[in-house]
C-alpha cells in the first residue's frame, strides 16, 4: 500500500454536487441509521412482551421530544432507503441507466421519501394525536 498522501478516488473535494451522488451517499447513511434504529424495534417488542409498565416507558420515550425527533429521522431514513432500494433493485435489472433517467429517478427517491414521511406523520397525528 502507498504511504504517500496522494488524494484517494473518488475525489469528493473536487466534485460538483449532483443528485446521483447524493442518493448514493444517502443510501449508505440511511442504511446505517436504520441499523442503529433497530434498537427502537428491539425496545418496542421486548417491552411489549415484558408488560404494561416497561411498554409505557418505551411509549413515553417515543412521545418525548427526543423520541419524536429520532422517530422522524428513522421514518424518513426508512422511506428513503425503501424507495432508493427499489431503485437499486431496478438498476440491478439493468433498468433506468440512461443519464436523464438516472437523474430523474434519483430525484424521485429524494422527493418521494419526503412525501412518504409527511404522509406517515400526518396520518399518525390525525389518528393518534401526539400520544
Amino acid at each position, binding site marked *: 500500500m502507498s504511504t504517500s498522501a496522494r488524494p484517494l478516488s473518488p475525489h469528493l473535494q473536487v466534485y460538483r454536487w449532483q443528485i446521483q451522488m447524493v442518493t448514493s451517499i444517502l443510501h449508505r447513511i440511511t442504511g446505517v441509521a436504520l*441499523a442503529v434504529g433497530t434498537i427502537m424495534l428491539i425496545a418496542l417488542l*421486548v417491552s411489549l412482551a415484558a408488560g404494561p409498565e416497561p411498554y*409505557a416507558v418505551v411509549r413515553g420515550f417515543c412521545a418525548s421530544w427526543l423520541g419524536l425527533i429520532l422517530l422522524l429521522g428513522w421514518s424518513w431514513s426508512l422511506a428513503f432507503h425503501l424507495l432508493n432500494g427499489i431503485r437499486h433493485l431496478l438498476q440491478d435489472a439493468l433498468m433506468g441507466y440512461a443519464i436523464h433517467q438516472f437523474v430523474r429517478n434519483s430525484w424521485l427517491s429524494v422527493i418521494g421519501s419526503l412525501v412518504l414521511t409527511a404522509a406517515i406523520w400526518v396520518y399518525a397525528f390525525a389518528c393518534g394525536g401526539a400520544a
Partner: protein
Amino acid sequence: MSAELHEADLRTPLKHARGLGSAKSGTHHFMVQRVTAIALIPLVVWAVWLALTLVRADYAQAHALVQQPCNALLMIIFIIAVFWHAQLGVQVVIEDYVHTHWLALTSQVLVRFACVLGGFACVLAVARIALGNA
C-alpha cells in the same frame, strides 16, 4: 508470486489458492442482500401499517395485535430479514471505510454479534407475546 519462488515450491498453484475463498460463493453476499431487500419491500409496508396502528392502541390492544398469528408470523419474518439485511449492509460499509485490520475485524464480529443478539431478542419477545396468555 515470482517464477523462481514458484519453482522452488513443490506445491501447485491450486494448493496456494485453496482456502482463500471459493469463487462459487462470490455472489452469495450480493444475492442474499437483494433477496432480503425484495422481501423487505412488502414487509416494511406492513410494519409501517402496524406501527401506525400501535400509535392509538393501549397496551392490551398492542399486545393483542402482535399476538394475532398472522402478525406474529410476519413480525418474526420481518425481524429476520431486517437484521440479516442490516448485517450485510453494515459489513460492506465497514469493508469500504475501515482500513485498520484489527478494527475492521473486531467491528465485523461485533456487528454480527449485535445483529444476532438483537434479532433473537425480538424473536423471543414475539414468541412470548404470541404464546403467552397475557
